[in-house]
């Protein structure tokens, strides 16, 4: 009997969180009948703060034949270092990367990281299962749809893979028991895609049209996570939780029994301009304690270049409606959007503070691979770090030194605002 191929799945998460992506990959692959009995999985859910050498030590201890790693802009440097060490020690291990950081620049990633064998582009579940099957059979990964892989000294990209039409065919990591819910650190997903097309974001562009999990699947996952022992709060990864009034009513109804027991939702992302008194009541009934929203900027030119809308009055009304029910609203601003000068950014800060929203988050623009801004960077005159996390260096309207000043200023404002009874 041939020993099963050992697959290690690695994620370097924010502290306290677990990787939903790895849960999906493993659940899908384990349900693939081609792989049954031929592949054995181990998941390493670690934190981005971990020393890459220690992470490599953990990986190598599993003696994997395949290492699959989820890569985002904020963990990419650490991931590449881990891959380099693992590749040195165990060159026979096929290292496969996936995630938003690498998909759009797969060939560049392979050229820059000699230890990496293949990159899964776009939605990963079906592609990764095919990659495993191909490797297990001794086939060529570069022939798998949605994969960019090495063929000799070259990096070769197979055609894109179509998105999974029926998301319910992706087994739930929670319902299959692969992911044990963690208090405060678990996420659910009710749909993929985004109704918006913000130029700096990968979400709308990377996943195209909206696809939904069924209501029955969502209900079962909510019960599994919210009802798990010790779970007092969790969140949703959906880009817009209040996608439609009907959907919000449905979710609120599903969550309300758990909210009545004290289970809370934290930092769910909402379209604040579509929140009225009725929507606020539904969110409160769902146990929502805090939401996250824009405006990202209030500058007209930046809004236009970022393909975003902003209705000041509706935004204000949305914040007021939630605050009236005790829901904290984390307002996000981005420093360095094309079209914004330093005074536009300050105007955004003043606007947000005037609403006393409960929380304020300012971050520097990251020009992410695959986004509209990445593709239009030269046209817009954006200077950014080619290395992850791809922070903006300067724009035609904000010079390098001004950008750094704005970052320090925004940080001090955040700290001052957050410091309260």
């Amino acid at each position, binding site marked *: 009997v041939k020993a099963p191929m050992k697959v290690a799945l690695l994620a370097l998460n924010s502290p306290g969180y677990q990787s939903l992506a790895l849960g999906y990959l493993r659940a899908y692959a384990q349900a693939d009948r081609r792989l049954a009995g031929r592949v054995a999985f181990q998941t390493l859910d670690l934190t981005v703060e971990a020393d890459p050498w220690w992470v490599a030590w953990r990986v190598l201890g599993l003696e994997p034949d395949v290492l699959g790693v989820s890569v985002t802009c904020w963990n990419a440097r650490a991931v590449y270092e881990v891959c380099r060490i693992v590749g040195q020690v165990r060159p026979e291990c096929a290292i496969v990367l996936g995630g938003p950081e690498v998909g759009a620049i797969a060939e560049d990633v392979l050229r820059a990281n000699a230890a990496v064998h293949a990159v899964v582009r776009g939605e990963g579940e079906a592609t990764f299962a095919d990659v495993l099957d191909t490797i297990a059979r001794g086939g060529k990964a570069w022939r798998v749809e949605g994969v960019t892989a090495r063929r000799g000294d070259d990096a070769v990209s197979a055609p894109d893979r179509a998105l999974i039409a029926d998301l319910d065919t992706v087994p739930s990591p929670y319902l299959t028991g692969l992911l044990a819910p963690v208090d405060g650190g678990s996420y659910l997903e009710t749909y993929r895609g985004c109704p918006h097309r913000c130029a700096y974001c990968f979400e709308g562009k990377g996943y195209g049209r909206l696809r939904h999990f069924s209501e029955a699947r969502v209900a079962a996952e909510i019960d599994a996570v919210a009802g798990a022992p010790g779970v007092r709060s969790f969140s949703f990864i959906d880009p817009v939780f209040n996608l439609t009034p009907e959907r919000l009513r449905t979710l609120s109804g599903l969550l309300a029994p758990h909210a009545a027991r004290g289970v809370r939702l934290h930092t769910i992302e909402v379209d604040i301009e579509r929140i009225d008194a009725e929507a606020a009541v539904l969110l409160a009934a769902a146990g929502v304690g805090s939401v996250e929203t824009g405006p990202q900027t209030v500058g007209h030119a930046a809004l236009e270049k970022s393909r975003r809308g902003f209705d000041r009055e509706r935004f204000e009304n949305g914040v007021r409606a939630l605050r009236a029910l005790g829901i904290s609203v984390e307002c996000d601003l981005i420093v360095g959007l094309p079209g914004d000068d330093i005074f536009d950014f300050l105007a955004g800060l003043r606007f947000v503070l005037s609403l006393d929203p409960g929380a304020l988050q300012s971050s520097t623009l990251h020009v992410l691979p695959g986004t509209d801004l990445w593709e239009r960077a030269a046209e817009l005159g954006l200077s950014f770090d080619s290395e992850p996390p791809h922070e903006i260096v300067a724009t035609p309207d904000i010079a390098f030194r001004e950008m750094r*000043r704005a970052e*320090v200023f925004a*940080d001090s404002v955040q700290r001052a605002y957050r*410091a309260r009874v």
Partner: protein
Amino acid sequence: VLDFAEVSLGTGGDVRCGRCHGAADAVTFLDAATLAERIAEAAAGAGAPGPNVALTGPEPFDHPELPLLVAAAARAGVARLRIDTDAAALSNHGNAAGSIAAGVRHVRVTLLGGSSGTHDALRGTPGACHAALAGLRAYTRAAAEQDAAVCATVLVPVCRHNIRDLPAAVAAAGEAGACSVLLRVEDGGADFDAALPWMTAACDTGVVNGVWVELEGVPYCMAPGAPIHLADTHRSRAGMHGPRCAGCPLVSFCAGGPADASADVLASLSAPDGAAALVGRVSLVRGAGA
């Protein structure tokens, strides 16, 4: 950026340059009942985000009923209570931890310089600089231990006697855990031309150490380095008037221009010939207005 309604606990006892102002005035405190009323009034009149109230005036830790005042602020619904202090008391007997637990999430510490050689000499109190920085460290350390979000700021009253020490003051404040430093120019006889490089260096010292430096009392026409450091870019323009403004023909424009003009004006200042651009622009505006 955050406005605090100030309630003075009494008179005298200011931490200020002894060479400019002479010996500190004798301290008198108001009674707790009067102050509690004033705190409630200040809280009621404060705008968003808030209400935010600052206890100013003589050293608050010398007030015999400080705990009652902090409790009064809590009763009044104050969201952010700031104590303006010389910080010496913060490192004594659990004062820092106790203050944070009671709801004091903002402190503002006055430093006259970044070293004993400046601060102690100008204040006339040996050991005051060391005590202030130790208090600041105790406060931020206690906040970390309690996992409480706090904001420690440092106020530096700028005068001709401490101009050269401004970068060191910013560095010392940052090392002790301050998140921002306010340089407030109060000296009518200060030589701004000589001060400009030091204020610029102080701003840059702050940026590279992650400490925000804000300038108050610096006229529009003296924006050092970058206009974003000027208090006026995010606060009322009253703070932009310095002693040098007294004889300036442009002062009424600076004080009373349209609300959205400041961005343009400040942007023009960052141009290589900013001052000239400003004069030209003001002439144009006045001409159009007439």
